[in-house]
């Protein structure tokens, strides 16, 4: 895959730069972690990520393309090549309102033990934004997604509807409230009931199923995800949906020209269905198909500070506390037997990012530290994550107009 990228990247770069009226952005990020799989069994990893994005406006349309490659230095199966292509369209409605529509397709490709994570998908977005008053903005957005995995166990359709309103006050205070409804339907998340047994979760070992793997094996890739550090599917048939509703509130305060403060709270309820999988995973930097923002019921509290320093230097720091319950997901003992508890995680996240902008280059370093407690002992862990990188915008555009 690295060899393919070696040939593909220069071609894409040359094509992008030669195009008129476009924006080309080249990014490189280097990550280091002591806990790739985010379990009590730490696995250190270094990850290098490259991406090349290209945007071009054609009338009111914008075309967007992005290719990226992530190289995992130890876990080569998680090396991934990703690409997406899409367009959006802006439709003004008077001088204070506009509609926004977007459509796109995306693919991500993994190998070896993680080939089942490979996916092809499509998305649609419709949005409306209007100034209710000069200091108050109302937004409505709907997004639909479809994803087909190389292991069909993870195939899904989903939709999210969002309503947002804010108000800015002369005291430099912004209040914002959001309400969201989301629904995700796994098309066929269950294994055929053939008496598959799971092995105990023992320290340092992957959870395996008899019969050569967990996955259905009949997706477009014909792949079976073998399970890793905590994923266990259920036996059964048919589909399974999970729906949530959430509300959130944010207050932000500017102090002079240098300091920005914000605090936010989010509460999410599962209003229908539950997760189809018995145990789920969450890897660092990998869009793991067994868990995401649809999976949990609970709350999240966040505080942030932004310092706008001289010399185009920006410092951001934040703290987030979350308490999440995963309906349908069992807490398992290290012996692999269910504890009779729905999995519940509480997490404390501290993060900071320092960014410096040069003439055409932006460089940054960032650090995150997480302490995760869980009713499932496999998911009690603490770890730090270091990241650094740059973003380089290439001059492929006219200097004046919209592109």
């Amino acid at each position, binding site marked *: 895959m690295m060899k393919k990228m070696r040939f593909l990247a220069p071609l894409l770069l040359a094509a992008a730069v030669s195009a008129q009226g476009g924006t080309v952005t080249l990014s490189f990020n280097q990550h280091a972690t002591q806990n790739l799989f985010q379990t009590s069994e730490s696995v250190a990893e270094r990850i290098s990520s490259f991406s090349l994005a290209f945007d071009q406006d054609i009338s009111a349309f914008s075309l967007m393309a992005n290719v990226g490659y992530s190289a995992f230095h130890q876990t080569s199966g998680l090396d991934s090549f990703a690409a997406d292509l899409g367009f959006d369209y802006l439709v003004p409605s008077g001088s204070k309102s506009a509609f926004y529509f977007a459509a796109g397709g995306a693919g991500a490709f993994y190998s070896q033990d993680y080939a089942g994570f490979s996916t092809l998908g499509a998305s649609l977005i419709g949005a409306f934004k209007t100034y209710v008053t000069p200091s108050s903005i109302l937004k409505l957005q709907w997004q639909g997604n479809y994803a087909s995995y190389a292991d069909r166990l993870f195939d899904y359709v989903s939709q999210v509807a969002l309503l947002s309103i804010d108000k800015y006050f002369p005291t430099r205070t912004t209040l914002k409230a959001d309400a969201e409804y989301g629904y995700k339907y796994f098309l066929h998340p269950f294994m055929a009931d053939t008496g598959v047994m799971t092995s105990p979760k023992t320290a340092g070992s992957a959870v395996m199923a008899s019969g050569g793997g967990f996955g259905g094996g009949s997706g477009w890739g014909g792949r079976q995800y073998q399970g890793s550090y905590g994923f266990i599917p259920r036996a059964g048939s048919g589909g399974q949906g999970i729906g949530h509703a959430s509300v959130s509130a944010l207050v932000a305060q500017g102090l002079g020209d240098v300091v920005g403060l914000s605090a936010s709270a989010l509460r999410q309820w599962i209003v229908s269905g539950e997760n189809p999988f018995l145990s789920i995973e969450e890897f660092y930097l990998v869009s793991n198909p067994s868990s995401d923002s649809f999976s949990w019921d609970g709350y999240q509290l966040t505080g942030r500070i932004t310092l706008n320093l001289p010399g185009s230097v920006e410092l951001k720091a934040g703290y987030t506390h979350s308490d999440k319950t995963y309906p349908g997901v069992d807490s398992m003992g290290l012996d692999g037997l269910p504890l009779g508890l729905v999995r519940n995680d509480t997490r404390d996240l501290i993060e900071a990012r320092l960014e410096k902008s040069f*003439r055409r280059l932006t460089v940054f370093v960032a650090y995150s530290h997480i302490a995760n407690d869980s009713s499932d002992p496999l998911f009690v862990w603490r770890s730090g994550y270091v990241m650094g990188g740059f973003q380089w915008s290439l001059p492929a555009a006219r200097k004046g107009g919209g*592109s």
Partner: protein
Amino acid sequence: MRSKVTLLALAAVLAAGPAAGQTGGPPPGHFYDVDKEVRFEGTVREVVFEPRYKGTAPFLVLRVEEAKLAKTVTVEVSPSWFFREDIHSGEKVKGIGSLSETPGGAATIIARQLQLRGQTLTLRDKRGFPNWQGGPRGQRGIRRFGGF
């Protein structure tokens, strides 16, 4: 010294005529000129969505009451930021942009950088090339923790 020169340049153009956008958008030749960069600072008095360039989506345009000159200057932001950033009337804003003088006497600042709410928002690079990407769909990136 630099800020005095900036203010004089800005005042001269502002004195020449009404703000752009009120006359149907900039004429041909309206482009980012790094030799005409100015700094501006003031309070957003109006936020509108206007056609600015033939064959492109309308732009988010700010009418900013310049703090030191007590005059209103038109600041051209970008098309897609209408959806990506929320700018309100009454917000204090500082920025850097290219002063565009038009034959009709309209004055517009093509913004390169905006500072508001303690954040720096980069719209173009230092040579004036656009740095924006799509609307809600344009917010890409591999999954990371937290918000930044």
